[in-house]
């Protein structure tokens, strides 16, 4: 549902357009966010993603974007979490670079504590929207945070993310930016398939690219199933909003 800045092909970016593309590729369900959450203003984008997925909740699960509580833009935090739960939100995203704040405990603590209690995953594009050092500091301060690291880019980031996966059991790696040859197999052998989740980064990227890579990786069928959807279903099923 997010419109990329560049590269993209003219695309129907409505929920119906997204579902059509998911049907073409054979994708049943997707965690989605709205580009306005990043490019306009998180609260506006949160409202827009709710509106966009309305009527398609079985297949499109919304993510909301967070901001530092001190500015008051998210409103009362208990109310924010209640509203998120009512909207069917099952994950939060953060864009600390674009929204110009520090993603660390002394800035975001009140919110992060609630996320840990509710087991809501934080989806973070690294190094796209923050740097590795910040992620290390954040997890050192909030080790029980559920975090899904996405969009890692073409230069494989194993040397950066592997220590995090080893140390923090709630850290997961998403596949859309993880395209190193043999990477899926090496990761699964070391950390297990349960620590990796499929993501496409559509519409910026093709649905089928990492789908084919996972389907024909040399791991067991049950491990492929876990990465393709089982792990994310489990993570989202544990959310208590």
């Amino acid at each position, binding site marked *: 549902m997010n419109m990329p800045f560049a590269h993209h092909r003219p695309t129907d970016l409505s929920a119906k357009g997204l579902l059509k593309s998911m049907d073409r590729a054979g994708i049943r369900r997707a965690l989605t966010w709205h580009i306005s959450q990043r490019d306009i203003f998180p609260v506006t984008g949160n409202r827009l993603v709710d509106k966009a997925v309305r009527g398609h909740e079985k297949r499109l699960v919304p993510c909301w974007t967070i901001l530092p509580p001190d500015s008051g833009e998210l409103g009362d935090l208990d109310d924010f979490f209640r509203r998120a739960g009512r909207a069917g939100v099952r994950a939060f995203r953060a864009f600390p670079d674009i929204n110009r704040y520090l993603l660390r405990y002394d800035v975001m603590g009140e919110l992060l504590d609630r996320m840990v209690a509710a087991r809501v995953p934080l989806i973070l594009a690294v190094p796209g929207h923050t740097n590795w050092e910040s992620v290390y500091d954040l997890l050192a301060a909030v080790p029980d945070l559920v975090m899904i690291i996405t969009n890692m880019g073409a230069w494989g980031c194993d040397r950066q993310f592997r220590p995090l996966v080893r140390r923090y059991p709630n850290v997961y790696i998403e596949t859309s930016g993880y395209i190193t040859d043999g990477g899926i197999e090496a990761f699964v052998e070391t950390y297990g398939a349960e620590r990796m989740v499929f993501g496409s980064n559509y519409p910026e990227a*093709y649905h089928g*690219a990492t789908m084919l890579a996972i389907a024909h990786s040399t791991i067991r069928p049950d491990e492929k199933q876990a990465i393709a959807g089982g792990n994310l279903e489990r993570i989202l099923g544990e959310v208590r909003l």
Partner: protein
Amino acid sequence: MINRTSKLAAEFWKHGKTRSCPVIDMHGHMGPFRGIYFPRASTADMVKTLDECGVRMLVFCHHEALFCPEIGNTTAIEAVRKYPKHLRAYLGLLPHHPEQIARDLATYDKYRDVYVGLKFLAGYFQIPWDAKVWECAWQFANERKLIVLGHTWGGSQHDGPGQVRKAAEKYPDIKLLCGHSMFGAWDEAVAVARDLPNVYLELTALLSYRGPLEKFVDAGLVDRILFGTDLPWFDPHQGIGAVLSADITDEDRHKILHRNAEKLLKGVGVRISHQ
């Protein structure tokens, strides 16, 4: 499933590869590299990947040939001679070592079973394609009608669209493969390729994005698009999955995944077995 509208996608989805569409990868490397962990960088592991993904041939330039003058192209030569059905190499040139360029070109004919052409990596060294140090190599390739793979990037003064245009005009007998298709400068890439029939657009790294591939096909350039992965960098199945997902026809996919490369390789004496 990937793409319900493509017969070829259904074949790849089911089997991971298909005899009806062998894949030729025209942009590879080999061996470990400083800034990235590769689980499968050895020659044997790379050949295993090629077999798993239905890649019939990989044309590569070893990282050592591009960054390590002490070793140069030696490992690449050994690799091709060990796996001649799977591998061919580009002779890698080191612009900071002109004496080595001269030596390598002088011995090129000794390795006609190994090389299909030359590889230029200008941007990494910030030495533009029209610098004097490259000149003997351009002339050498032009005289012999070789394939030249150059790393190209949008906005680069060293290997961007301006340099591509200049080189392709000056050396019309070279088959000039633009690695990464002048990444990001998609409109300029189309313009250069339309104007100059010896310019080819190679897909490494583009396939992580929707759009550029369809743009090239829509521009009528499907006969000059080549598949590549930077192997051992990128999983060939990721790239193949992107080509299968794109809004193009299966006929286009055949050209991109193997037919265009087969024609080019035939021109330098390499025939791809379909068995």
